C-alpha cells in the first residue's frame, strides 16, 4: 500500500475542509457577535496491518482537520444609538435567548422591543432575564451596565440573564447562536454589560487572509510531494523494466 498517496489525499481533503471553515469566517466578517472557529489539525493514524502476534500496528496516515469551538477573541465594539443594544464585557459571557428549540446563547446584543414591549433578539427570539423573558410594560426600556433592564416601572428591577460558558463544548446553531453540547449549565456571567455598544464580528480579515495564503501554499506543497512520489514510482518501474 502506498502510504505517501493516502497521506496526499488526507492532506488535500483536510486543506479543503480548512478552506471551508476559513470561507465561513470571512463571509461573516461583518456579522455582529459572530465567533470564528478555532481550527485545529490533528495527525490521523490508520490500522494498516495486523502484527505477527495479531496486534494492530498503527501507522501515520496523514492529517485531519477539525473545526474547533468558537474563538473567544472579542469582536470590535461599535457605538449604537439604540437604548436596548448592549455588548458583553467578559469574553466568555453570553446572553440567553429562548428559541423554539430551547435556550440558546449569543454574543449578539442588537436587541429591540416589539409592539408589546417584549425584548427580542435580531431573530425575534425573547431575551431571557433572571426570571424569564424580559418585558417593558411601558413599551420603553433601556439596558444598564449592571445588567438591569430598566423599564421605568417600580418594584424589583428586571435583570438580563448572563451565563459564563468558559470550558464548555459549544455547538453552533446558526444566527450567531450556540447551545452547550452535553446539556450542561453555564456558570453565572462574570462581567457586566456595555450599553450602547454592539460587538462586531470576531472574524478578522487580516488573520483570515494570511491563513488563506498559508492554506494555498500548503496545498501547493502537497501537490509537489504527490508529483515527487509519482515520479519516484515511475522511475522505479522504469528501472525494473531495464533489469
Amino acid at each position, binding site marked *: 500500500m502506498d502510504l505517501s498517496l493516502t497521506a496526499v489525499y488526507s492532506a488535500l481533503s483536510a486543506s479543503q475542509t480548512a478552506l471551508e471553515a476559513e470561507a465561513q469566517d470571512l463571509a461573516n466578517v461583518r456579522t455582529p457577535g459572530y465567533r470564528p472557529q478555532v481550527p485545529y489539525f490533528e495527525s490521523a493514524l490508520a490500522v494498516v496491518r495486523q502484527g505477527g502476534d495479531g496486534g494492530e500496528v498503527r501507522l501515520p496516515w496523514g492529517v485531519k482537520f477539525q473545526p474547533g469551538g468558537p474563538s473567544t477573541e472579542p469582536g470590535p465594539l461599535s457605538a449604537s444609538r439604540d437604548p436596548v443594544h448592549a455588548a458583553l464585557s467578559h469574553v466568555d459571557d453570553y446572553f440567553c435567548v429562548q428559541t423554539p428549540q430551547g435556550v440558546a446563547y449569543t454574543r449578539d446584543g442588537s436587541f429591540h422591543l416589539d*409592539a408589546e414591549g417584549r425584548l427580542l433578539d435580531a431573530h425575534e427570539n425573547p431575551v431571557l432575564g433572571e426570571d424569564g423573558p424580559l418585558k417593558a410594560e411601558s413599551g420603553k426600556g433601556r439596558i444598564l451596565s449592571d445588567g438591569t433592564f430598566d423599564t421605568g416601572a417600580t418594584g424589583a428591577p428586571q435583570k438580563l440573564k448572563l451565563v459564563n460558558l468558559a470550558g464548555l463544548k459549544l455547538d453552533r446553531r446558526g444566527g450567531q447562536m450556540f447551545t452547550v453540547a452535553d446539556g450542561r449549565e453555564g456558570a453565572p456571567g462574570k462581567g457586566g454589560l456595555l450599553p450602547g455598544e454592539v460587538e462586531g464580528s470576531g472574524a478578522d480579515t487580516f488573520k483570515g487572509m494570511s491563513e488563506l495564503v498559508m492554506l494555498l501554499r500548503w496545498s501547493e506543497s502537497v501537490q509537489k510531494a504527490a508529483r515527487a512520489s509519482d515520479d519516484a514510482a515511475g522511475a522505479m518501474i522504469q528501472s525494473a523494466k531495464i533489469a
Partner: protein
Amino acid sequence: MFRALEIAASGMSTQQTAMDAVADNLANAETPAFKAGQVRFEELLSAEGAGGSGWAQGVRAAGVDRDLVQGNIQNTGKTWDLALNGPGYFPLLDGAGKEVYTRAGNFRVDSEGRLVHKSGLLVAGGISVPNGTQNIHVAEDGTVTGNPPGSDRSVALGRIEVVGFADEGGLAARGQGVFDATDSSGPALRQSSSSGELGLGTIQQGALESSNVDKVQAMVDLINTQRAYETASKVITAADDMLGYANNLRR
C-alpha cells in the same frame, strides 16, 4: 462536496445587499425625515451537520433595520414646513382613503385649498385653507389658524394630528417617507384622556426634520462593505486555486 465556493458566494451577495442599503443612505442624506437603514447580517448553518453543529453555509442579509433616532430640526422659514420634535407621525390619507403615516412634514396647499403632503397624499383631518389666507399659524399641538381672505380676524382652520406607535420599527415603508401600519407596529395610537401619556412630540412650524444619515459613517460603511466583498471574492479565487492543485496532482 467542496462548499467553500458557495460559502464565499453567499458573502459576496450579502455584501451586495449591504451596498444597496449604503447607497440608499447616501442618496437620502438630504431627504427630510429619512431614517438610515442597516443590513442585519446572520451566520447561516444547515440544520443537520457533523458533531452537533450544522454545516457552514455562509451568511445572509436577514433584513434591514432602520435607525429611528430623530434627525436634526432645521429651520426653513416656510409656512407649511412642519417638523415633529419628539416621537410620532403625521397621519395622511392615501388614494383609497386608508391612513398612512409620515414624519416628513413638507406640506403644501393644493389648487383646491386642501393641505397635502409632498407626495400629493391628503393630510388627515381635512384641513382646508382658502386661497389668499393670511397669517397662517400652526401651534405646537397642530391647531391651524389664519385670517381668511379679506378679513383681519384669525379663525381656526383645523388641526393636524400626531399619532404614535407601540413599535415604530415595525412600520412598512412605501416610499417618499410614507409608512403603512403593520401587525408588528400595531395600530396608530392617539393621545386622548383615556390613552395615558403617549409622550408624542410637538409640531414646530417653519422647520423640517433632516435626514438622520451620518455621512461619515455611511462612507465608512461603504469602504467596509466593499472590502468585505473583495475578501469574499479572494476566497473564491483561493478555492479555485486549491481545486487546480488537486487537478494537477499528476503532470
